[in-house]
Protein backbone atom coordinates (compact mmCIF):
# COMPACT_ATOMS: atom_id res chain seq x y z
CA UNK A 1 0.00 0.00 0.00
CA UNK A 2 2.90 2.36 0.75
CA UNK A 3 4.28 2.55 -2.83
CA UNK A 4 0.81 3.34 -4.17
CA UNK A 5 0.45 6.25 -1.72
CA UNK A 6 3.78 7.63 -2.90
CA UNK A 7 2.61 7.25 -6.48
CA UNK A 8 -0.57 9.20 -5.63
CA UNK A 9 1.54 12.00 -4.13
CA UNK A 10 3.25 12.38 -7.51
CA UNK A 11 -0.16 12.99 -9.10
CA UNK A 12 -0.30 16.32 -7.27
CA UNK A 13 2.64 17.59 -9.33
CA UNK A 14 0.64 18.33 -12.53
CA UNK A 15 -1.93 20.19 -10.43
CA UNK A 16 0.80 22.24 -8.76
CA UNK A 17 2.47 22.93 -12.11
CA UNK A 18 -0.91 23.95 -13.57
CA UNK A 19 -1.47 26.43 -10.74
CA UNK A 20 2.00 27.97 -11.14
CA UNK A 21 1.47 28.30 -14.89
CA UNK A 22 -1.97 29.90 -14.38
CA UNK A 23 -0.48 32.36 -11.87
CA UNK A 24 2.26 33.26 -14.34
CA UNK A 25 -0.24 33.74 -17.18
CA UNK A 26 -2.46 35.81 -14.84
CA UNK A 27 0.48 38.09 -13.95
CA UNK A 28 1.60 38.36 -17.60
CA UNK A 29 -1.72 39.46 -19.15
CA UNK A 30 -3.34 42.84 -18.55
CA UNK A 31 -3.47 46.40 -19.85
CA UNK A 32 0.34 46.32 -19.81
CA UNK A 33 1.86 42.94 -20.61
CA UNK A 34 4.72 41.93 -18.35
CA UNK A 35 7.44 39.73 -19.86
CA UNK A 36 8.81 36.72 -17.96
CA UNK A 37 12.06 38.63 -17.42
CA UNK A 38 10.22 41.66 -16.00
CA UNK A 39 8.18 39.41 -13.68
CA UNK A 40 11.32 37.57 -12.50
CA UNK A 41 13.24 40.78 -11.83
CA UNK A 42 10.24 42.43 -10.16
CA UNK A 43 9.72 39.45 -7.86
CA UNK A 44 13.34 39.41 -6.65
CA UNK A 45 13.68 43.19 -6.25
CA UNK A 46 10.59 44.18 -4.25
CA UNK A 47 12.12 47.53 -3.17
CA UNK A 48 12.59 48.79 -6.72
CA UNK A 49 10.67 51.91 -7.67
CA UNK A 50 9.26 51.65 -11.21
CA UNK A 51 5.89 51.38 -12.93
CA UNK A 52 6.50 47.69 -13.63
CA UNK A 53 7.14 47.14 -9.96
CA UNK A 54 3.91 48.99 -9.09
CA UNK A 55 1.85 46.98 -11.58
CA UNK A 56 3.36 43.71 -10.30
CA UNK A 57 3.19 44.30 -6.54
CA UNK A 58 0.15 46.59 -6.25
CA UNK A 59 -2.16 45.25 -8.99
CA UNK A 60 -1.34 41.85 -10.53
CA UNK A 61 0.13 39.85 -7.61
CA UNK A 62 -2.57 40.67 -5.02
CA UNK A 63 -5.23 40.01 -7.63
CA UNK A 64 -3.98 36.58 -8.78
CA UNK A 65 -3.16 35.52 -5.21
CA UNK A 66 -6.64 36.53 -3.98
CA UNK A 67 -8.23 34.76 -6.96
CA UNK A 68 -6.21 31.62 -6.10
CA UNK A 69 -7.21 31.84 -2.40
CA UNK A 70 -10.91 32.28 -3.22
CA UNK A 71 -10.85 29.57 -5.91
CA UNK A 72 -9.10 27.13 -3.57
CA UNK A 73 -11.43 28.03 -0.70
CA UNK A 74 -14.65 27.62 -2.72
CA UNK A 75 -13.40 24.28 -4.15
CA UNK A 76 -12.52 22.89 -0.71
CA UNK A 77 -15.89 24.08 0.67
CA UNK A 78 -17.61 22.45 -2.33
CA UNK A 79 -15.82 19.13 -1.73
CA UNK A 80 -16.83 19.25 1.95
CA UNK A 81 -20.48 20.14 1.18
CA UNK A 82 -20.67 17.30 -1.37
CA UNK A 83 -19.20 14.90 1.19
CA UNK A 84 -21.31 15.91 4.16
CA UNK A 85 -24.57 16.01 2.16
CA UNK A 86 -23.60 12.83 0.24
CA UNK A 87 -24.64 14.75 -2.81
CA UNK A 88 -22.64 15.29 -6.00
CA UNK A 89 -24.67 18.39 -6.92
CA UNK A 90 -24.08 20.22 -3.64
CA UNK A 91 -21.75 23.21 -3.63
CA UNK A 92 -21.61 26.50 -1.74
CA UNK A 93 -23.76 28.10 -4.48
CA UNK A 94 -26.40 25.38 -4.95
CA UNK A 95 -26.79 24.76 -1.21
CA UNK A 96 -27.43 28.43 -0.48
CA UNK A 97 -24.27 29.24 1.54
CA UNK A 98 -23.06 31.76 -1.03
CA UNK A 99 -26.38 33.60 -1.25
CA UNK A 100 -26.70 33.59 2.56
CA UNK A 101 -23.19 35.02 2.83
CA UNK A 102 -24.05 37.63 0.20
CA UNK A 103 -27.11 38.71 2.17
CA UNK A 104 -25.11 38.89 5.41
CA UNK A 105 -22.31 40.87 3.77
CA UNK A 106 -24.73 43.24 2.01
CA UNK A 107 -26.53 43.98 5.28
CA UNK A 108 -23.20 44.47 7.07
CA UNK A 109 -22.03 46.95 4.44
CA UNK A 110 -25.27 48.90 4.79
CA UNK A 111 -24.89 49.02 8.58
CA UNK A 112 -21.14 49.70 8.63
CA UNK A 113 -20.73 52.14 5.80
CA UNK A 114 -24.28 53.40 5.52
CA UNK A 115 -24.10 52.57 1.82
CA UNK A 116 -22.66 49.84 -0.30
CA UNK A 117 -19.22 50.64 -1.58
CA UNK A 118 -16.18 48.69 -2.63
CA UNK A 119 -14.36 47.74 0.56
CA UNK A 120 -11.56 50.16 1.26
CA UNK A 121 -11.05 50.12 5.02
CA UNK A 122 -9.22 47.15 6.55
CA UNK A 123 -11.35 47.22 9.72
CA UNK A 124 -14.52 46.51 7.68
CA UNK A 125 -13.36 43.12 6.41
CA UNK A 126 -13.56 41.08 9.69
CA UNK A 127 -17.12 42.37 10.23
CA UNK A 128 -17.94 41.53 6.65
CA UNK A 129 -16.60 37.97 7.06
CA UNK A 130 -18.55 37.54 10.32
CA UNK A 131 -21.78 38.85 8.78
CA UNK A 132 -21.27 36.68 5.68
CA UNK A 133 -20.63 33.69 7.96
CA UNK A 134 -23.82 34.22 10.00
CA UNK A 135 -25.87 34.65 6.81
CA UNK A 136 -24.34 31.55 5.21
CA UNK A 137 -24.73 29.41 8.35
CA UNK A 138 -28.39 30.37 8.78
CA UNK A 139 -29.24 29.45 5.19
CA UNK A 140 -27.25 26.15 5.21
CA UNK A 141 -28.82 25.08 8.53
CA UNK A 142 -32.24 26.01 7.12
CA UNK A 143 -31.66 23.90 3.97
CA UNK A 144 -30.38 20.99 6.04
CA UNK A 145 -33.30 21.13 8.52
CA UNK A 146 -35.95 21.28 5.79
CA UNK A 147 -34.34 18.33 3.95
CA UNK A 148 -33.98 16.28 7.16
CA UNK A 149 -37.53 17.00 8.33
CA UNK A 150 -39.01 15.94 5.01
CA UNK A 151 -37.01 12.68 5.07
CA UNK A 152 -37.84 11.87 8.72
CA UNK A 153 -34.27 12.01 9.99
CA UNK A 154 -32.85 9.68 7.33
CA UNK A 155 -30.23 10.73 4.79
CA UNK A 156 -31.57 13.77 2.97
CA UNK A 157 -32.64 12.86 -0.56
CA UNK A 158 -31.01 14.62 -3.50
CA UNK A 159 -34.14 16.26 -4.82
CA UNK A 160 -35.30 17.63 -1.45
CA UNK A 161 -31.87 19.07 -0.77
CA UNK A 162 -31.65 20.80 -4.14
CA UNK A 163 -35.22 22.12 -3.87
CA UNK A 164 -34.69 23.38 -0.31
CA UNK A 165 -31.43 25.02 -1.41
CA UNK A 166 -33.15 26.63 -4.39
CA UNK A 167 -36.06 27.86 -2.25
CA UNK A 168 -33.87 29.45 0.41
CA UNK A 169 -31.44 30.82 -2.20
CA UNK A 170 -34.38 32.47 -3.97
CA UNK A 171 -35.63 33.83 -0.66
CA UNK A 172 -32.28 35.35 0.28
CA UNK A 173 -31.88 36.55 -3.31
CA UNK A 174 -35.23 38.33 -3.00
CA UNK A 175 -34.08 39.99 0.23
CA UNK A 176 -30.90 41.19 -1.49
CA UNK A 177 -33.04 42.49 -4.39
CA UNK A 178 -35.22 44.32 -1.87
CA UNK A 179 -32.12 45.96 -0.39
CA UNK A 180 -31.07 46.92 -3.94
CA UNK A 181 -34.55 48.34 -4.64
CA UNK A 182 -34.51 50.40 -1.45
CA UNK A 183 -31.00 51.68 -2.24
CA UNK A 184 -31.50 52.17 -5.98
CA UNK A 185 -28.80 54.83 -6.23
CA UNK A 186 -26.31 52.06 -5.45
CA UNK A 187 -27.87 49.54 -7.86
CA UNK A 188 -24.88 49.15 -10.18
CA UNK A 189 -22.41 48.79 -7.31
CA UNK A 190 -24.48 46.13 -5.52
CA UNK A 191 -25.18 44.31 -8.77
CA UNK A 192 -21.55 44.14 -9.86
CA UNK A 193 -20.52 43.08 -6.33
CA UNK A 194 -23.09 40.27 -6.41
CA UNK A 195 -21.78 39.02 -9.75
CA UNK A 196 -18.36 38.51 -8.16
CA UNK A 197 -15.17 40.33 -8.99
CA UNK A 198 -11.54 40.73 -7.95
CA UNK A 199 -11.35 44.22 -9.38
CA UNK A 200 -9.77 46.78 -7.06
CA UNK A 201 -8.80 44.19 -4.41
CA UNK A 202 -5.50 44.61 -2.60
CA UNK A 203 -3.29 42.88 -0.02
CA UNK A 204 -5.77 43.87 2.74
CA UNK A 205 -8.32 41.35 1.52
CA UNK A 206 -5.68 38.61 1.32
CA UNK A 207 -4.42 39.34 4.84
CA UNK A 208 -7.94 39.19 6.29
CA UNK A 209 -9.59 36.40 4.27
CA UNK A 210 -6.49 34.28 3.51
CA UNK A 211 -5.92 32.98 7.08
CA UNK A 212 -9.66 32.17 7.47
CA UNK A 213 -9.66 30.21 4.20
CA UNK A 214 -6.39 28.47 5.16
CA UNK A 215 -7.54 27.53 8.68
CA UNK A 216 -11.03 26.36 7.70
CA UNK A 217 -9.65 24.52 4.64
CA UNK A 218 -6.95 22.91 6.80
CA UNK A 219 -9.58 21.83 9.34
CA UNK A 220 -11.66 20.28 6.56
CA UNK A 221 -8.59 18.37 5.36
CA UNK A 222 -8.08 17.06 8.91
CA UNK A 223 -11.71 15.90 8.82
CA UNK A 224 -11.08 13.81 5.69
CA UNK A 225 -11.67 10.46 7.36
CA UNK A 226 -15.03 11.45 8.90
CA UNK A 227 -16.00 12.74 5.43
CA UNK A 228 -15.00 9.37 3.92
CA UNK A 229 -17.09 7.53 6.52
CA UNK A 230 -20.11 9.80 5.95
CA UNK A 231 -20.08 8.79 2.28
CA UNK A 232 -21.37 5.33 3.34
CA UNK A 233 -24.43 6.92 4.97
CA UNK A 234 -25.28 8.00 8.50
CA UNK A 235 -25.91 4.56 9.98
CA UNK A 236 -22.79 2.98 8.52
CA UNK A 237 -20.67 5.91 9.73
CA UNK A 238 -22.14 5.47 13.22
CA UNK A 239 -21.47 1.72 13.35
CA UNK A 240 -17.87 2.45 12.27
CA UNK A 241 -17.48 4.70 15.33
CA UNK A 242 -18.31 8.21 14.11
CA UNK A 243 -20.44 10.59 16.21
CA UNK A 244 -22.11 12.01 13.13
CA UNK A 245 -23.88 14.96 14.80
CA UNK A 246 -20.66 16.43 16.19
CA UNK A 247 -18.59 15.90 13.05
CA UNK A 248 -21.29 17.03 10.65
CA UNK A 249 -21.66 20.26 12.59
CA UNK A 250 -17.89 20.81 12.61
CA UNK A 251 -17.63 20.19 8.85
CA UNK A 252 -20.60 22.47 8.11
CA UNK A 253 -19.19 25.28 10.25
CA UNK A 254 -15.71 25.02 8.67
CA UNK A 255 -17.09 24.85 5.09
CA UNK A 256 -19.48 27.73 5.76
CA UNK A 257 -16.68 29.85 7.29
CA UNK A 258 -14.53 29.12 4.23
CA UNK A 259 -17.37 30.12 1.87
CA UNK A 260 -18.15 33.25 3.89
CA UNK A 261 -14.53 34.45 3.78
CA UNK A 262 -14.48 33.94 -0.01
CA UNK A 263 -17.81 35.71 -0.60
CA UNK A 264 -16.90 38.60 1.73
CA UNK A 265 -13.88 39.56 -0.39
CA UNK A 266 -15.02 38.60 -3.90
CA UNK A 267 -18.83 38.56 -4.06
CA UNK A 268 -20.85 35.56 -5.22
CA UNK A 269 -18.91 33.31 -7.61
CA UNK A 270 -20.85 30.19 -8.55
CA UNK A 271 -20.16 26.74 -9.99
CA UNK A 272 -16.46 26.61 -9.16
CA UNK A 273 -17.15 24.78 -5.90
CA UNK A 274 -19.09 22.23 -7.94
CA UNK A 275 -16.67 21.77 -10.84
CA UNK A 276 -13.31 21.54 -9.11
CA UNK A 277 -14.10 18.63 -6.71
CA UNK A 278 -15.66 16.58 -9.54
CA UNK A 279 -12.68 17.09 -11.83
CA UNK A 280 -10.32 16.23 -8.95
CA UNK A 281 -12.30 13.08 -8.14
CA UNK A 282 -11.65 11.91 -11.71
CA UNK A 283 -7.90 12.61 -11.31
CA UNK A 284 -7.24 11.50 -7.71
CA UNK A 285 -10.19 9.34 -6.64
CA UNK A 286 -12.89 10.04 -4.03
CA UNK A 287 -10.88 9.77 -0.75
CA UNK A 288 -11.09 13.18 0.92
CA UNK A 289 -7.47 13.06 2.13
CA UNK A 290 -6.41 13.56 -1.51
CA UNK A 291 -9.60 15.17 -2.81
CA UNK A 292 -9.46 18.24 -0.54
CA UNK A 293 -5.87 19.37 -1.30
CA UNK A 294 -6.35 18.40 -4.98
CA UNK A 295 -9.59 20.41 -5.23
CA UNK A 296 -7.84 23.36 -3.59
CA UNK A 297 -5.09 23.38 -6.25
CA UNK A 298 -7.50 22.86 -9.16
CA UNK A 299 -10.03 25.40 -7.83
CA UNK A 300 -7.27 27.98 -7.45
CA UNK A 301 -6.06 27.29 -11.02
CA UNK A 302 -9.56 27.56 -12.52
CA UNK A 303 -10.29 30.79 -10.68
CA UNK A 304 -7.02 32.43 -11.79
CA UNK A 305 -7.80 31.41 -15.40
CA UNK A 306 -11.41 32.67 -15.10
CA UNK A 307 -10.24 35.99 -13.66
CA UNK A 308 -7.58 36.41 -16.34
CA UNK A 309 -10.27 35.83 -19.00
CA UNK A 310 -12.65 38.20 -17.18
CA UNK A 311 -10.23 41.13 -17.36
CA UNK A 312 -8.70 40.49 -20.82
CA UNK A 313 -11.48 39.28 -23.17
CA UNK A 314 -13.14 42.70 -23.60
CA UNK A 315 -10.23 44.83 -22.29
CA UNK A 316 -10.09 47.61 -21.22
CA UNK A 317 -13.56 46.79 -19.83
CA UNK A 318 -13.94 43.88 -17.39
CA UNK A 319 -16.51 41.10 -17.13
CA UNK A 320 -17.45 40.11 -13.53
CA UNK A 321 -15.64 36.82 -12.87
CA UNK A 322 -18.89 35.24 -11.61
CA UNK A 323 -20.22 35.46 -15.18
CA UNK A 324 -17.14 33.65 -16.53
CA UNK A 325 -17.37 30.82 -13.96
CA UNK A 326 -21.11 30.49 -14.63
CA UNK A 327 -20.45 30.28 -18.38
CA UNK A 328 -17.80 27.62 -17.71
CA UNK A 329 -19.78 25.80 -14.99
CA UNK A 330 -23.32 25.73 -16.30
CA UNK A 331 -22.63 23.26 -19.15
CA UNK A 332 -20.66 21.14 -16.66
CA UNK A 333 -23.59 21.13 -14.20
CA UNK A 334 -26.02 20.10 -16.93
CA UNK A 335 -23.64 17.36 -18.10
CA UNK A 336 -23.53 16.05 -14.52
CA UNK A 337 -27.35 16.08 -14.22
CA UNK A 338 -27.78 14.31 -17.57
CA UNK A 339 -25.13 11.64 -16.88
CA UNK A 340 -26.70 10.93 -13.45
CA UNK A 341 -30.12 10.76 -15.08
CA UNK A 342 -28.81 8.20 -17.58
CA UNK A 343 -27.25 6.14 -14.74
CA UNK A 344 -30.45 6.02 -12.69
CA UNK A 345 -32.71 5.67 -15.73
Amino acid at each position, binding site marked *: *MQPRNQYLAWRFLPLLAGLLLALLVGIHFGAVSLSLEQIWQGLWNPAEDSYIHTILWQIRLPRVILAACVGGGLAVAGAAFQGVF*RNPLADPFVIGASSGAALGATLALLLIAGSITVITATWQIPWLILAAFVGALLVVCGVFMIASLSSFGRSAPLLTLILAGMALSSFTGALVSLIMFLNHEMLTTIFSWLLGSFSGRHWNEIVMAGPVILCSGGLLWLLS*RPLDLLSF*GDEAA*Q*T*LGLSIGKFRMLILIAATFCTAACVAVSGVIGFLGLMAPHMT*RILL*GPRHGLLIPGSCLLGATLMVIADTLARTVIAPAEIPVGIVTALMGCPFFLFLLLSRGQQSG
Partner: protein
Amino acid sequence: MHPIELENVTCGYTRQDVLKQISLNIKPGTVLVLLGPNGSGKTTLLRALFQLVEIREGSVLIEGESLSQMSRKQVAQKLALAPQLESPQWPMTVEETVQLGRSAHRGWVQPFGVEDTSQVQAALQQTGLTELRQRKITEISGGEWRRTLIARALVQQTNVLCLDEPTTGLDLKYQVEILSLIRNLAHERNLTVILTIHDLNLASSFADQIVLLDKGEIAAIGTGVEVLTEARLTEVYQTPVKVLPHPEYQTPLIVPVL
Protein backbone atom coordinates in the same frame (compact mmCIF):
# COMPACT_ATOMS: atom_id res chain seq x y z
CA MET B 1 -18.73 -12.47 31.33
CA HIS B 2 -21.32 -12.48 28.55
CA PRO B 3 -20.28 -10.35 25.56
CA ILE B 4 -23.87 -9.16 25.17
CA GLU B 5 -26.70 -9.07 27.68
CA LEU B 6 -30.15 -7.66 27.03
CA GLU B 7 -32.46 -7.08 29.98
CA ASN B 8 -36.15 -6.37 29.34
CA VAL B 9 -35.36 -4.29 26.25
CA THR B 10 -38.26 -2.47 24.64
CA CYS B 11 -37.46 -0.37 21.59
CA GLY B 12 -39.01 0.89 18.39
CA TYR B 13 -39.50 3.67 15.86
CA THR B 14 -41.69 6.78 16.29
CA ARG B 15 -44.71 5.65 18.35
CA GLN B 16 -44.65 1.92 17.75
CA ASP B 17 -42.75 -0.58 19.91
CA VAL B 18 -41.07 -3.18 17.66
CA LEU B 19 -39.33 -5.24 20.35
CA LYS B 20 -41.11 -5.85 23.65
CA GLN B 21 -39.38 -6.88 26.89
CA ILE B 22 -36.55 -8.85 25.26
CA SER B 23 -34.07 -10.53 27.63
CA LEU B 24 -31.14 -12.42 26.16
CA ASN B 25 -27.65 -13.49 27.25
CA ILE B 26 -25.24 -14.46 24.48
CA LYS B 27 -22.28 -16.73 25.28
CA PRO B 28 -18.82 -16.07 23.79
CA GLY B 29 -17.84 -18.11 20.73
CA THR B 30 -21.47 -18.71 19.74
CA VAL B 31 -23.08 -18.37 16.32
CA LEU B 32 -26.52 -17.03 17.21
CA VAL B 33 -29.11 -16.79 14.45
CA LEU B 34 -32.11 -14.48 14.74
CA LEU B 35 -35.06 -16.01 12.89
CA GLY B 36 -38.60 -14.84 12.37
CA PRO B 37 -41.06 -13.68 9.72
CA ASN B 38 -40.86 -10.23 8.10
CA GLY B 39 -41.47 -7.48 10.65
CA SER B 40 -40.76 -9.73 13.65
CA GLY B 41 -37.95 -7.42 14.85
CA LYS B 42 -34.74 -9.24 13.76
CA THR B 43 -33.03 -6.21 12.21
CA THR B 44 -34.37 -3.92 14.96
CA LEU B 45 -32.67 -6.13 17.57
CA LEU B 46 -29.33 -5.74 15.73
CA ARG B 47 -29.89 -1.98 15.37
CA ALA B 48 -30.62 -1.71 19.11
CA LEU B 49 -27.12 -3.04 19.85
CA PHE B 50 -25.67 -0.08 17.91
CA GLN B 51 -28.02 2.55 19.37
CA LEU B 52 -29.53 3.07 15.94
CA VAL B 53 -32.99 2.72 17.43
CA GLU B 54 -34.38 4.29 20.59
CA ILE B 55 -34.24 1.93 23.61
CA ARG B 56 -37.27 2.93 25.69
CA GLU B 57 -36.99 0.44 28.52
CA GLY B 58 -34.42 -2.01 29.81
CA SER B 59 -30.68 -2.06 29.30
CA VAL B 60 -28.05 -3.46 26.95
CA LEU B 61 -24.67 -4.49 28.40
CA ILE B 62 -21.65 -4.95 26.12
CA GLU B 63 -18.93 -6.94 27.90
CA GLY B 64 -20.46 -5.84 31.20
CA GLU B 65 -20.56 -2.15 30.27
CA SER B 66 -23.81 -0.27 29.76
CA LEU B 67 -24.32 0.64 26.09
CA SER B 68 -25.88 3.99 27.01
CA GLN B 69 -22.60 5.02 28.73
CA MET B 70 -20.41 4.16 25.73
CA SER B 71 -19.31 6.48 22.91
CA ARG B 72 -19.82 5.46 19.26
CA LYS B 73 -16.09 4.80 18.99
CA GLN B 74 -16.07 2.52 22.04
CA VAL B 75 -19.02 0.57 20.62
CA ALA B 76 -17.21 0.23 17.26
CA GLN B 77 -14.19 -1.26 19.05
CA LYS B 78 -16.40 -3.96 20.59
CA LEU B 79 -19.14 -4.59 18.01
CA ALA B 80 -18.97 -4.68 14.21
CA LEU B 81 -21.93 -4.67 11.84
CA ALA B 82 -22.18 -5.79 8.24
CA PRO B 83 -25.49 -4.16 7.27
CA GLN B 84 -28.14 -5.54 4.95
CA LEU B 85 -28.27 -2.44 2.75
CA GLU B 86 -25.84 0.38 2.21
CA SER B 87 -25.59 2.66 -0.78
CA PRO B 88 -22.12 4.15 -1.22
CA GLN B 89 -22.00 7.65 -2.66
CA TRP B 90 -18.52 7.78 -4.19
CA PRO B 91 -16.66 5.13 -6.20
CA MET B 92 -13.98 4.08 -3.68
CA THR B 93 -12.10 0.84 -4.29
CA VAL B 94 -12.92 -2.35 -2.42
CA GLU B 95 -9.62 -2.07 -0.50
CA GLU B 96 -10.25 1.57 0.51
CA THR B 97 -13.74 0.64 1.74
CA VAL B 98 -12.44 -2.25 3.84
CA GLN B 99 -9.61 -0.09 5.22
CA LEU B 100 -12.11 2.41 6.63
CA GLY B 101 -13.26 -0.36 8.99
CA ARG B 102 -10.03 0.35 10.91
CA SER B 103 -11.13 3.93 11.68
CA ALA B 104 -12.30 3.24 15.25
CA HIS B 105 -8.80 1.94 16.09
CA ARG B 106 -6.93 4.84 14.48
CA GLY B 107 -8.92 7.91 15.42
CA TRP B 108 -9.85 10.54 12.87
CA VAL B 109 -6.45 11.96 11.97
CA GLN B 110 -3.80 9.24 12.51
CA PRO B 111 -2.84 7.57 9.22
CA PHE B 112 -3.37 3.85 8.70
CA GLY B 113 -0.25 1.81 9.45
CA VAL B 114 1.35 -1.57 8.77
CA GLU B 115 -0.96 -3.42 11.17
CA ASP B 116 -4.03 -1.95 9.47
CA THR B 117 -2.69 -2.99 6.07
CA SER B 118 -2.10 -6.58 7.18
CA GLN B 119 -5.58 -6.77 8.75
CA VAL B 120 -7.10 -5.47 5.50
CA GLN B 121 -5.15 -7.99 3.37
CA ALA B 122 -6.20 -10.85 5.67
CA ALA B 123 -9.89 -9.85 5.55
CA LEU B 124 -9.76 -9.47 1.75
CA GLN B 125 -8.28 -12.97 1.49
CA GLN B 126 -10.82 -14.49 3.91
CA THR B 127 -13.73 -13.06 1.92
CA GLY B 128 -12.22 -13.95 -1.48
CA LEU B 129 -11.81 -10.31 -2.53
CA THR B 130 -8.02 -10.12 -3.02
CA GLU B 131 -8.35 -10.13 -6.81
CA LEU B 132 -11.03 -7.42 -6.71
CA ARG B 133 -9.31 -5.09 -4.25
CA GLN B 134 -8.65 -2.35 -6.83
CA ARG B 135 -12.15 -2.52 -8.34
CA LYS B 136 -14.52 0.37 -7.66
CA ILE B 137 -17.40 -0.50 -5.33
CA THR B 138 -19.86 1.00 -7.81
CA GLU B 139 -18.72 -1.54 -10.42
CA ILE B 140 -18.98 -4.81 -8.44
CA SER B 141 -21.91 -7.21 -8.14
CA GLY B 142 -24.34 -7.25 -5.21
CA GLY B 143 -22.70 -10.39 -3.80
CA GLU B 144 -19.22 -8.87 -4.03
CA TRP B 145 -20.46 -5.72 -2.29
CA ARG B 146 -21.93 -7.86 0.51
CA ARG B 147 -18.58 -9.61 0.95
CA THR B 148 -16.86 -6.20 1.02
CA LEU B 149 -19.14 -5.14 3.89
CA ILE B 150 -18.33 -8.37 5.75
CA ALA B 151 -14.57 -7.77 5.21
CA ARG B 152 -14.98 -4.19 6.52
CA ALA B 153 -16.68 -5.56 9.65
CA LEU B 154 -13.93 -8.21 10.10
CA VAL B 155 -11.11 -5.61 10.15
CA GLN B 156 -12.78 -3.90 13.10
CA GLN B 157 -11.27 -6.79 15.12
CA THR B 158 -14.16 -6.90 17.56
CA ASN B 159 -15.22 -9.75 19.84
CA VAL B 160 -18.77 -9.53 18.50
CA LEU B 161 -19.68 -9.59 14.82
CA CYS B 162 -23.24 -8.76 13.72
CA LEU B 163 -24.44 -9.56 10.22
CA ASP B 164 -27.81 -8.53 8.83
CA GLU B 165 -28.90 -11.02 6.14
CA PRO B 166 -25.30 -11.81 5.07
CA THR B 167 -26.35 -14.46 2.53
CA THR B 168 -28.94 -12.46 0.60
CA GLY B 169 -27.84 -11.96 -2.99
CA LEU B 170 -25.03 -14.52 -2.76
CA ASP B 171 -24.95 -17.66 -4.86
CA LEU B 172 -24.83 -21.05 -3.08
CA LYS B 173 -21.01 -21.26 -3.12
CA TYR B 174 -20.57 -17.92 -1.33
CA GLN B 175 -23.50 -18.56 1.02
CA VAL B 176 -21.74 -21.68 2.29
CA GLU B 177 -18.28 -20.05 2.21
CA ILE B 178 -19.35 -16.97 4.17
CA LEU B 179 -21.30 -18.96 6.77
CA SER B 180 -18.39 -21.47 7.13
CA LEU B 181 -15.95 -18.56 7.53
CA ILE B 182 -18.16 -16.99 10.18
CA ARG B 183 -18.53 -20.28 12.06
CA ASN B 184 -14.77 -20.96 11.93
CA LEU B 185 -13.98 -17.46 13.20
CA ALA B 186 -16.48 -17.90 16.03
CA HIS B 187 -14.99 -21.21 17.12
CA GLU B 188 -11.26 -20.44 16.52
CA ARG B 189 -11.14 -16.85 17.81
CA ASN B 190 -13.93 -17.25 20.35
CA LEU B 191 -15.83 -14.63 18.34
CA THR B 192 -19.52 -14.11 19.07
CA VAL B 193 -21.56 -13.90 15.90
CA ILE B 194 -25.15 -12.65 15.70
CA LEU B 195 -26.81 -12.89 12.33
CA THR B 196 -30.27 -12.50 10.89
CA ILE B 197 -31.23 -14.87 8.15
CA HIS B 198 -34.38 -15.85 6.27
CA ASP B 199 -33.37 -19.32 5.11
CA LEU B 200 -34.49 -21.73 7.86
CA ASN B 201 -32.36 -24.60 6.53
CA LEU B 202 -29.15 -22.52 6.46
CA ALA B 203 -29.93 -21.40 10.01
CA SER B 204 -30.51 -24.98 11.06
CA SER B 205 -27.15 -26.07 9.58
CA PHE B 206 -24.93 -23.24 10.87
CA ALA B 207 -26.40 -21.93 14.14
CA ASP B 208 -25.18 -22.92 17.57
CA GLN B 209 -28.18 -21.15 19.02
CA ILE B 210 -31.40 -19.87 17.43
CA VAL B 211 -33.67 -17.10 18.68
CA LEU B 212 -37.08 -17.25 17.02
CA LEU B 213 -38.83 -13.89 17.11
CA ASP B 214 -42.54 -13.35 16.59
CA LYS B 215 -44.23 -9.94 16.66
CA GLY B 216 -41.36 -8.40 18.64
CA GLU B 217 -41.20 -11.11 21.31
CA ILE B 218 -39.02 -14.20 21.74
CA ALA B 219 -41.13 -17.20 20.69
CA ALA B 220 -38.37 -19.75 21.38
CA ILE B 221 -34.66 -19.94 22.14
CA GLY B 222 -32.28 -22.91 21.98
CA THR B 223 -30.56 -25.24 19.52
CA GLY B 224 -31.98 -25.92 16.06
CA VAL B 225 -33.58 -29.19 17.20
CA GLU B 226 -35.20 -27.46 20.19
CA VAL B 227 -36.55 -24.42 18.33
CA LEU B 228 -37.39 -25.59 14.82
CA THR B 229 -40.45 -27.76 15.47
CA GLU B 230 -43.35 -28.23 13.06
CA ALA B 231 -45.99 -26.81 15.39
CA ARG B 232 -43.97 -23.73 16.35
CA LEU B 233 -42.87 -22.84 12.82
CA THR B 234 -46.39 -23.36 11.45
CA GLU B 235 -47.75 -20.99 14.13
CA VAL B 236 -45.06 -18.29 13.81
CA TYR B 237 -44.84 -18.26 10.00
CA GLN B 238 -48.61 -18.89 9.61
CA THR B 239 -48.00 -21.47 6.93
CA PRO B 240 -47.85 -25.27 7.26
CA VAL B 241 -44.36 -26.82 7.22
CA LYS B 242 -42.90 -30.31 7.57
CA VAL B 243 -39.74 -30.81 9.65
CA LEU B 244 -37.67 -33.84 8.66
CA PRO B 245 -34.31 -35.01 9.99
CA HIS B 246 -31.42 -34.09 7.65
CA PRO B 247 -30.27 -37.40 6.05
CA GLU B 248 -26.59 -36.65 6.78
CA TYR B 249 -26.31 -34.20 9.71
CA GLN B 250 -29.52 -35.08 11.57
CA THR B 251 -30.33 -31.34 11.90
CA PRO B 252 -33.93 -30.25 11.21
CA LEU B 253 -34.76 -29.94 7.51
CA ILE B 254 -37.73 -27.63 6.92
CA VAL B 255 -39.99 -28.20 3.93
CA PRO B 256 -43.04 -26.01 3.25
CA VAL B 257 -46.28 -27.89 2.61
CA LEU B 258 -47.54 -26.68 -0.77
